[in-house]
C-alpha cells in the first residue's frame, strides 16, 4: 500500500479510505521469479495463492497478467496478523503436493512479521531458505544467496522446498496489454480459508512520534561551518 496512513477508529487497523491495495513488493518479486523459472524451462506452471477478502482477486489477476497460470483465493474477510494461522490455511491447500518450489515474499510490508514462509515449510515438512537475493534451481537442488549484515552466505537444499524472496533477484514486470487480456480467461478459484487458531492478535496501532520540523541552514558550501557547529553543539553527534 502506498501513501500516508491514518489509524481507523477501532485502533487496530488503518483507515482504508483513499488507499489502494496492491501486491506486496516482495510477493511481486516472488511471482516474477516463479514466472521466469517456467519461462526459462519452457515447462511448468505457476499457481498464485492469496489469503484475504475479495479485494485480493485484483492482486491475483495482476499476477495472472504477469504470466502466472492459475490463481487461488483463500477467502477470509478479516485481516490476520498471525503468521501461523495463515500458514495453517496455506498448508491445508498445499498438503497434497503437486509442486517443486514454493516462493513467498521475505515479509509482508504491512505486518512485517517474516513468519509465514517458514511456518508453511515446517507444516509441510519441507526445507526452507529465507530472505534470498539470488536463486538457481538445477538438478533437483536449490542454490541461493542470503545477504547478512556486512556479509553474505551461500545456501543449498533439495527440492521440493520453500524459499522467501528478498531484494536483488528480480523486479515484478509490468503486465502487458496482451497479458491483461489473457489473464481474464485464466482460472481463479475461490475457497474458504481454513485458518489456524489465532494466538497473536494485534491490540493497538499507533503513529510513531512526529519529527520536529527541521530547518534549512543555508545554501551551498558556505553553509558547511554552520552545519558542523550544529552537529557538534546541538545534535552532539560530531
Amino acid at each position, binding site marked *: 500500500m*502506498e*501513501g500516508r496512513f491514518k489509524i481507523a477508529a477501532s485502533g487496530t487497523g488503518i483507515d482504508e479510505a483513499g488507499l489502494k491495495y496492491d501486491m506486496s513488493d516482495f510477493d511481486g518479486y516472488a511471482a516474477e521469479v516463479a514466472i521466469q523459472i517456467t519461462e526459462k524451462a519452457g515447462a511448468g506452471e505457476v499457481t498464485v495463492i492469496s489469503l484475504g477478502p475479495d479485494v485480493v482477486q485484483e492482486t491475483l489477476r495482476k499476477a495472472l497478467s504477469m504470466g502466472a497460470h492459475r490463481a487461488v483465493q483463500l477467502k477470509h474477510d478479516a485481516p490476520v*496478523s*498471525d503468521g*501461523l494461522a495463515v500458514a495453517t490455511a496455506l498448508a491445508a491447500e498445499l498438503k497434497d503436493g503437486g509442486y517443486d518450489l514454493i516462493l513467498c515474499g521475505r515479509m509482508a*510490508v*504491512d505486518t*512485517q512479521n*517474516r*513468519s509465514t514462509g517458514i*511456518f508453511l515449510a*515446517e*507444516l509441510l515438512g519441507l*526445507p526452507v*531458505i529465507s*530472505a534470498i*537475493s539470488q536463486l538457481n534451481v538445477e538438478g533437483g537442488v536449490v542454490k541461493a544467496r542470503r*545477504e*547478512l*549484515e*556486512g*556479509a*553474505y*552466505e*551461500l*545456501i*543449498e*537444499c*533439495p527440492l521440493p522446498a520453500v524459499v522467501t524472496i528478498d*531484494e*536483488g533477484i528480480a*523486479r515484478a514486470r509490468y503486465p502487458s496489454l496482451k497479458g491483461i487480456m489473457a489473464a481474464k480467461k485464466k482460472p481463479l478459484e475461490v475457497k474458504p480459508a481454513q485458518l489456524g487458531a489465532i*494466538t*497473536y*492478535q*494485534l*491490540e*493497538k*496501532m*499507533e*503513529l*510513531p512520534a512526529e*519529527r520536529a*520540523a*527541521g*530547518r*534549512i*541552514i*543555508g*545554501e*551551498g*558550501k558556505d*553553509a*558547511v561551518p554552520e*552545519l*558542523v557547529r550544529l*552537529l557538534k553543539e546541538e*545534535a552532539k*553527534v*560530531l
Partner: protein
Amino acid sequence: MTNILAFSETRLGELRRAGLETVTAARKVADATGGQVHAVLAGAPGIAQHAAKLAAHGADVVLVLEHDAFANYNPEALTATLAARLGSGYRAAFFAASALGHDLVARVAAKMKLAYASDVTEFAFSADSVAVAHPGYTNKIVQRFVLKATPALISLRAGAVLPAENAKAGTVEALAPVGDPAAVRVKVTLTEKAAGGKIDLGEAPVIIAGGRGLKEAANFKLVEDLAAAFGNAAVGATRAVTDDGWRPHSDQIGQTGRLVSPDLYVACGISGAIQHLAGMRTSKTIVAINKDKEAPIFKAADYGIVGDVMDVLPVLTEAVKQAKAGA
C-alpha cells in the same frame, strides 16, 4: 519457568554485538522476575572463548554448542537443539532481529508451533504474557501485540537494548546437539564478509547515503570520503541507485531494503521518496544536502543545505576531518 534464554549470534568465530544485546535484554527480564539467564553460544570448536564476555553481560549459564557443523550457520540443527532445550521449560527466549535471527526465531517458533514477536523495539513482561511493540507498514506505524505463548519467543531489533555489563557467574555447560548436525537438508556452504571490512548499516552510528543527485557511480567516492572522515560511518544508497547498479542491493535503505536508525543520517543528493523515508525516518539526527529546495527530504531533515552535493561534500569532508582531529 522463570529462566530466560538468549541466543548469542556469532559469525565466522566472532561474537556479534547483537549477541550481547540479547543477553543484556534477558538479564533485564531475569532481574525483574528472579530467573536465570542462559546464553547459547554455537560455532566451530573454540567458540567457547566468548563465554566470559557473555558472563560479563549477565549470563548465569553459558550453553556451548561446539561442532564443526556449526562453523557456518546451521539452521536445522540449531532449531532442533533450541526447540528441545526450550521445551524443557523457559519463560522466554531472545534472538537478534538480524538476517540470521529472523530466520532462526521463525524456525524455532514453527517447530514449537508457537506464535512469536518479530523485530521488537519494546517489551514488558507480566505474569502470563508479554506486551511487545514492533514497527509495521514500513515503519510508518507502531503495532502493539500481546504475546501469550510460553516460552515467549522474541527477536530484538538492533539497538532496542544496548549491551550493558552486569557480571554473573557464566558457568559453561556443553549443550549436546539434537540429531546429527551434519545430516541436515539446508546447508550453508560459504559465509563471507563483504569486501573492505565495512561497518554494517544496522550497526553504524553514522550513515552517509547517496542518491541520484550524485549523477554517476564514480561520484560515490565523495560519499565514501565523508564516511571515512567520520570513521564510524557506513555508506547507504537509495533504491534508484542500487537498481542502476551503482551500489550493491545490500546497501539499499528504504521500504524494501534496510530499515535503519543511526544517530546521524546524512542524505546526499536524495530527494526523499516516501519509500526511502520509510527506511530512515527514525534516525536521531538527519542532515539533507540537495539542489532542489522543494525536495521532500528537507521535511524530514533536522538540518538542510540547499546546494549541489558535488560542491558541498568535499568541503564538509574537510570540515569533519578537522573537527575529528580537534576533538
